[in-house]
C-alpha cells in the first residue's frame, strides 16, 4: 500500500470538501470518516506515506500520536474552524484554517507526497528507524512484525535496507548506531543486548 489520505472530521460537508480538494492525488487512496474510532490502526501499517487531516481541537491526540509512531512517513494537518479554537500546536505538522482554499491544501498534500523517496539516499526512513529501534531493544523479527502490524517478510526487507544503508551488519553494531543516533536511549539497552 503506497500513499493514503485519512480525513477524520465530524462535519460531513467539510469532509466532502476535503475529499474533492484532494481527489486524484498521485494515486493516493482517500479514507474519510467522522470519528477516530472508525479508523482501524492495523489497516494502515503498510502505508508508506500517510496524510492525516483532523480537527485541530480533536480530543484524540493520544491515538493520533500512536498512529504516527506506527506509520512510516506522515504529515498531520490540523484544521482550525474558528479563531478562538484551542489546540496543541505541537501535535501537528501543519495547522490550516477551515477556509483555506482547496488549491492551497492540495499543494501542501502534493508537496508531501512528492517528497523525494528517502530510500534514494542513505538516511533511514521513519519506518526503518522504528524497525531499528525495535531491533535495538532486542526484539525478534516476529515480535517486530507483531508490534508494527506488518509481516515478518516486510520486517526482513526493512532490516536488509537498514543494513545496506548503514553498512552495519551485526545486531550489536546496529544497537550502538541506534544509541549514537539517539533512536533509543542507552538506558533502554541491557548490556546483554550487545552480546
Amino acid at each position, binding site marked *: 500500500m503506497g500513499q493514503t489520505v485519512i480525513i477524520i472530521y465530524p462535519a460531513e460537508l467539510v469532509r466532502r470538501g476535503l475529499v474533492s480538494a484532494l481527489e486524484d492525488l498521485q494515486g493516493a487512496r482517500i479514507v474519510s470518516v467522522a470519528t477516530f474510532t472508525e479508523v482501524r490502526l492495523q489497516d494502515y501499517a503498510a502505508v508508506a506515506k500517510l496524510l492525516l487531516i483532523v480537527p485541530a481541537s480533536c480530543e484524540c491526540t493520544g491515538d493520533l500520536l500512536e498512529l504516527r509512531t506506527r506509520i512510516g512517513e506522515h504529515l498531520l494537518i490540523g484544521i482550525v474552524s474558528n479563531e478562538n479554537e484551542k489546540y496543541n500546536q505541537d501535535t501537528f505538522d501543519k495547522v490550516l484554517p477551515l477556509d483555506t482554499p482547496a488549491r492551497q491544501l492540495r499543494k501542501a498534500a502534493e508537496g508531501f507526497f512528492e517528497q523525494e523517496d528517502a530510500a534514494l539516499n542513505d538516511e533511514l526512513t521513519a519506518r526503518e528507524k522504528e524497525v531499528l529501534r525495535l531491533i535495538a531493544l532486542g526484539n525478534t523479527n516476529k515480535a517486530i512484525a507483531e508490534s508494527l502490524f506488518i509481516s515478518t517478510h516486510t520486517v526482513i526487507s526493512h532490516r536488509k535496507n537498514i543494513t545496506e544503508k*548503514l*553498512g*552495519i*551488519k*551485526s545486531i*550489536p*553494531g*546496529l*544497537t*550502538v*548506531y541506534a*544509541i*549514537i*543516533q*539517539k533512536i533509543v536511549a*542507552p*538506558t533502554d539497552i541491557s*548490556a546483554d543486548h*550487545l*552480546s
Partner: protein
Amino acid sequence: MQEFTKTDKMVHLVQNNHSLLPVIHRFGIRLGFGNKTVEELCSVYGVNTDFFLAIVNTFHNKNYFPKAQLLSFSPLLIVDYLKKTHAYYVGFSLPQIEELIHQLLLSTPQQNSEMKMIETFYLAYKRKLLEHLKEEEETIFPYVEMLVLKPQEVEHRNFDFNFEKEHEHVDFELNDLKKLILKYLVPEYDEWVCNKLMEEIYRFEKDMHDHSRMEDAILIPHVLHLMKTAE
C-alpha cells in the same frame, strides 16, 4: 605480488612488509637476523622452512593460498601456529585495542553515554571472541592432537564444525566497530590515539581474516580427513 623463498634474507621480508614481523615472532624467530636467509634462520630456530614460507606468503599476499601445500603439513604444525596466533590476540591485540578505545573516548570532550557505547560494544565483542578462542583451544585443538598422536584413543565424537559461521560473525562485528568509529565519532578527539587505534584495528582485522581462513580451509578439512581415517 612476489612470493618469498627460502633463499631470501629474513630481513628482506620485514623490510618488504613490516606487518610480517608479528608472524615471524609467532614462530619463535627473534630479531638479530643479520644476513641470514629464511632457510638458515628456520634451521637455527628449529622451524619447518616450507611451513614457515607457506604461512608468511599467505599472510603477505591475500590472493596466495596454497591449499594443497598447506594441507600437506602435519595438523600439529598448524595447530601450533594457530595457538600462537591466539596468544598474540589474547595477550596483545585485544588488550591494545581496548586500551586505545578507552584513551580515544577519554580524549573526547563529550564523554557521553552514546560514545561510551562504542567501548561497551568492543568489550562485548572481545568477550565473545575470547570465548570462541577458548572453545577452540579447549576442544578442537586437543582433539586434533589426539587424532594425530593417539588416534586409537579417540572416541568417536561428533563435532560441530560450524566455525565458518562464527568467523563470519566475528568479522561482521569488527567491521561494524570500524564503521561506527569512522562515521559517528564526535569530531573532537586525540588524533594520534585515533590513528593508532585505527591502524591496530585494521591490522587485527587482516590477521584475523588470515587466521580464520587457515582454520576454515585447512584445519577443518584436516580434522574431517583424520576422523575418517580413524573410523
